[in-house]
């Protein structure tokens, strides 16, 4: 057995939870809740007398409502009037904007394009933006996400709110070309998010490397999925010679390691 296999076996043996069946947590809590819309079919036995229990239930419910009303009335009368704490509007608006960006990113990571567009502002809800989102989501689902975090409001926190996040690429081609950390800017209005282009990284050079690799090693795939000519004008964004679409990303993302190695080796011709 090679060293590689022996070391992998050590890793397998270091499994913190070797047996799923050893998990004894009771799954009951998730299913305890009674779904409110469940349909129940009651089957009465032939000898079962009809029992009209609902009048008693209605009477009990009515009594409970009256009692609760009385208690609430007494409590609110005995409590001195206290105005609500004034909230800091800037803080609240800023926190909501950050939350909106966070939820937008979750939808993007999940590849839920309908949700992404529903949470997008009108400036980035077009077909070409959808395709760019699909491009990003495809890289993510192929294990090469651009991690967006460290989001912060750019003062003042007045709508339209500008949010800037750190974007860290895990694409090995980007790493090879020195594109690792960038700035991901967002504009938030009414809880809707417009994603702006990354700043601080030459992504065109990264995309051009993919395009060049495909030209040499998979011209058919390039023509079919990544050439701008493969799409209707105005329905996509192009960068570095590639049409940034989900279809193109599905072709190039699995090649990332190979392309990175090819770049590292000086981009030799086949």
């Amino acid at each position, binding site marked *: 057995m090679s060293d590689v296999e022996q070391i992998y076996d050590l890793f397998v043996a*270091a499994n913190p939870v070797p047996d799923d069946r050893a998990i004894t947590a009771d799954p009951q809590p998730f299913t305890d809740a009674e779904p409110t819309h469940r349909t129940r079919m009651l089957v009465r036995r032939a000898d079962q007398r009809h029992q009209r229990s609902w009048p008693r239930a209605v009477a009990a419910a009515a009594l409970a409502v009256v009692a609760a009303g009385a208690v609430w009335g007494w409590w609110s009368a005995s409590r001195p009037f206290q105005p609500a704490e004034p909230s800091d509007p800037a803080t609240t608006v800023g926190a909501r904007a950050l939350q909106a960006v966070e939820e937008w990113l979750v939808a993007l990571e999940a590849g839920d394009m309908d949700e992404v567009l529903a949470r997008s502002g009108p400036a980035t809800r077009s077909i070409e933006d959808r395709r760019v989102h699909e491009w990003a989501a495809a890289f993510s689902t*192929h294990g090469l996400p651009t991690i967006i975090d*460290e989001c912060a409001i750019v003062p003042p926190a007045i709508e339209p709110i500008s949010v800037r996040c750190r974007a860290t690429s895990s694409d090995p081609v980007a790493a090879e070309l020195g594109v690792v950390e960038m700035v991901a800017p967002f504009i938030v209005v009414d809880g809707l998010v417009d994603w702006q282009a990354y700043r601080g990284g030459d992504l065109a050079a990264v995309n051009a490397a993919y395009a060049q690799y495909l030209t040499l090693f998979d011209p058919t795939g390039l023509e079919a999925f990544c050439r701008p000519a493969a799409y209707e004008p105005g329905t996509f964004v192009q960068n570095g010679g590639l049409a940034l679409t989900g279809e193109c990303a599905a072709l190039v993302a699995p090649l990332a390691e190979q392309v990175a190695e090819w770049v590292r080796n000086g981009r030799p011709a086949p």
Partner: protein
Amino acid sequence: MAGNHSAENVFDRLYRAHHSAVLAYCLRRLAPSDAHDVVSEVFTIAWRKIEARPADDKIRSWLYGIAYRVLSHHWRGRRRRHRLEERMAGLAESPPPDPETVVVRRLEDRRVVEAAGRLRLPDREILRLAGWEQLPHSEIATVLGISVAAVDQRFHRAKKRLAREYERLPAGAPAGSVRMREGR
């Protein structure tokens, strides 16, 4: 997707059948305090998407795929929280230990887990899915949303990278930290 059961019955059956597997998946990657929260989120998403679930033999991979995405998000948030804590005038507490930190006892375990922690997330995840979840490559492909050929290739490379990182670590020296660098 077939069956005459209501969505609730289907979900109930799915939950009971796969809860342990999903919890084990999370416990292999997170501290127990976080694992239960993530499991709840995974099944909440599964409930929302119950009508889009795959065939029964693919359910486990489908749930692992959801868990992988939820965890990616969780790690990102956790990293942000830790940075915030660290900025708070030295008041930062150590984050709860990862399961690897708690469980690994033998020196070799420590060393190999630390070596795995030096790999990129996609490499590490493929090794875990194959070695810890014991998934065949076809199911790993479903979880990660990539082709089986890509899984074959990446698994082969990830094993070689693991061996390389393992050899780089000093033999016999106790590892200072075995926390995996999640999210990156």
